[in-house]
């Protein structure tokens, strides 16, 4: 023990910094959190040995690490740096769901983050000076800032290799399995980009064990099953998600349009599942729901007509045999 006496002051300081970090993490997470915890309904938090000692801190650290993953993706290390990247981020609709059936027309896609993952480096306007005032200033203050940017570049550069954010996502979902957003993001990357569907499913099921009434998690699981060809399971998850659906209370998505898009997505998935299972009637009924929710969506109307046409064709074939003609007016 005597050998460790020298560490007592650093340990006290580290402990104090840790507690301050916990408080600031709480504030940060509250400011950045977009998901609704559901008011605690159906929320079952796992009790690990670690959580017995540090309680909520485990979850907070997990939530912070999700921000870390997001920052890492944008080429930042510090959480505070997020505020600089965040301005660019807000311009996009940051949505990590995979491109499902029906194409990308149902809601805005974030072409930076989705699918092909292309991303030419955005102009590092922060390098010109904060506030976007351009690069003409020659004061010592600006000189100092430019020098700082040489060791801490703020360029909005996306990672070329998606594996790089996996460690942070892993830590996030392990520390806070109930973080819905972390589980959804992790599942998206694992299934959609890194070809790890089993791992993605495990993450989603672990999250569902804590949040059994989360429609987002069930929807994500439904997409996963669909992509794996397990249409029956996909349909069950999708129907559960529809039953549990409620609009997000996140301010950024408080408008009705986002809620409508989410719900329409669920019905579209259900329609696709019915179609794959050979139930055209069910598929059409779901497609009709989509068209009701999004009356101005040409893609939704097209899909409905196509399904009805196929349904009508089948019905005609069953009723009149070859040569008979029947169809919907």
């Amino acid at each position, binding site marked *: 023990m005597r050998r460790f006496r020298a560490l007592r002051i650093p340990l006290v300081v580290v402990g104090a910094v840790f507690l301050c970090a916990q408080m600031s993490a709480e504030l940060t997470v509250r400011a950045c959190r977009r998901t609704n915890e559901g008011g605690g309904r159906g929320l079952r938090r796992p009790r690990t040995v670690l959580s017995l000692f540090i309680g909520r801190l485990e979850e907070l650290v997990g939530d912070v690490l999700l921000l870390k993953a997001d920052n890492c993706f944008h080429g930042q290390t510090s959480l505070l740096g997020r505020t600089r990247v965040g301005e660019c981020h807000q311009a996009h609709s940051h949505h990590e769901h995979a491109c499902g059936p029906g194409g990308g027309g149902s809601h805005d896609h974030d072409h930076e983050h989705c699918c092909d993952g292309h991303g030419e480096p955005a102009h590092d306007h922060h390098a010109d000076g904060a506030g976007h005032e351009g690069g003409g200033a020659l004061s010592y203050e600006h000189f100092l800032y430019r020098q700082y940017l040489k060791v*801490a570049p703020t360029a909005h550069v996306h990672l070329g290799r998606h594996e790089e954010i996996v460690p942070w996502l892993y830590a996030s979902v392990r520390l806070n399995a109930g973080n819905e957003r972390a589980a959804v993001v992790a599942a998206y990357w694992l299934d959609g980009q890194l070809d790890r569907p089993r791992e993605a499913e495990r993450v989603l099921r672990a999250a569902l064990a804590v949040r059994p009434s989360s429609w987002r998690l069930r929807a994500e699981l439904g997409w996963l099953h669909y992509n794996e060809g397990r249409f029956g399971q996909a349909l069950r998850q999708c129907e559960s998600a529809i039953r549990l659906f409620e609009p997000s209370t996140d301010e950024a998505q408080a408008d009705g349009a986002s809620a409508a898009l989410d719900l329409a997505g669920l019905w579209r998935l259900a329609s696709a599942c019915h179609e794959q299972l050979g139930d055209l009637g069910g598929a059409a009924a779901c497609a009709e729901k989509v068209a009701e929710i999004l009356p101005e969506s040409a893609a939704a109307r097209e899909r409905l007509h196509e399904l009805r046409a196929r349904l009508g064709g089948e019905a005609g074939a069953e009723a009149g045999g070859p040569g008979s003609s029947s169809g919907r007016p």
Partner: protein
Amino acid sequence: MLADRSLRAERAIARVMLIELFRRKDLYVLGLLVLVFLGAAASIDFFGVGGAEVYLRELSTTLTLLFTVIIAVGVVARQIPRELERKTLMPILAKPLSRWQFVFGKFLGAVASFTAALAVLWACSALVSALKGVRLTGLLVQGFVLQWLGLVMLTAFALMVSTAVSETAVSVTLSLLAYFLLKGFTSNIHILGSGASGVGASALALAYTVVPHFEFYDPTQMMAFAPLQHWLRPLDWLFFAGYAFGYAAIFLAGAWLAFRRRRI
């Protein structure tokens, strides 16, 4: 006798500090902690996905920076207060050396201490990274030198605080708090200032110009995201070195002024 000593007295004081550091075994404990942390981080199976390097580079840089900061401040900030408390200063200051030599000798000893710590911790990080297959090239050297320069500045700062404050614990705490606050928020002063106007803008600009910029010497971002052959230009190195040594000189002068008239 006085003329030809040429830093001999300072080196003698520094040597004693280094001996104490090695015999106190702080360094070994921290090296072991870094090995344990990094080893654990490198051995975790992240969903069966391999190939991630950025997190390991970032984690090793952060841990190295954190522990060397603790060592640098912990070693230097308690030198003078503890010697005053334990009266070990008296036989030393009774020798024919000036107070400046004593202060500078303590500074050199602290520099030697954190250099040794930095080398050990970087070696541990390089070992873990090499075992994991993470590529390390010029970035490693640059990160090492940048951190070293930052620690020179921090050590001088902590020494100055310790000569003004008599209590060891207060000295250590103040130095660490000042370091983390300045490092974390100084860069935002510039951003705030660009949005301000009038007297506020001038005050923020002045503050940004005057406060020591410890964030210049945090290579985490560079280590994590820069291309592996990313080199700073010679003029940039000149600036960073000059900045660090310049502020170190100012802090050392402050330490000497505070210590000069101190009654032992």
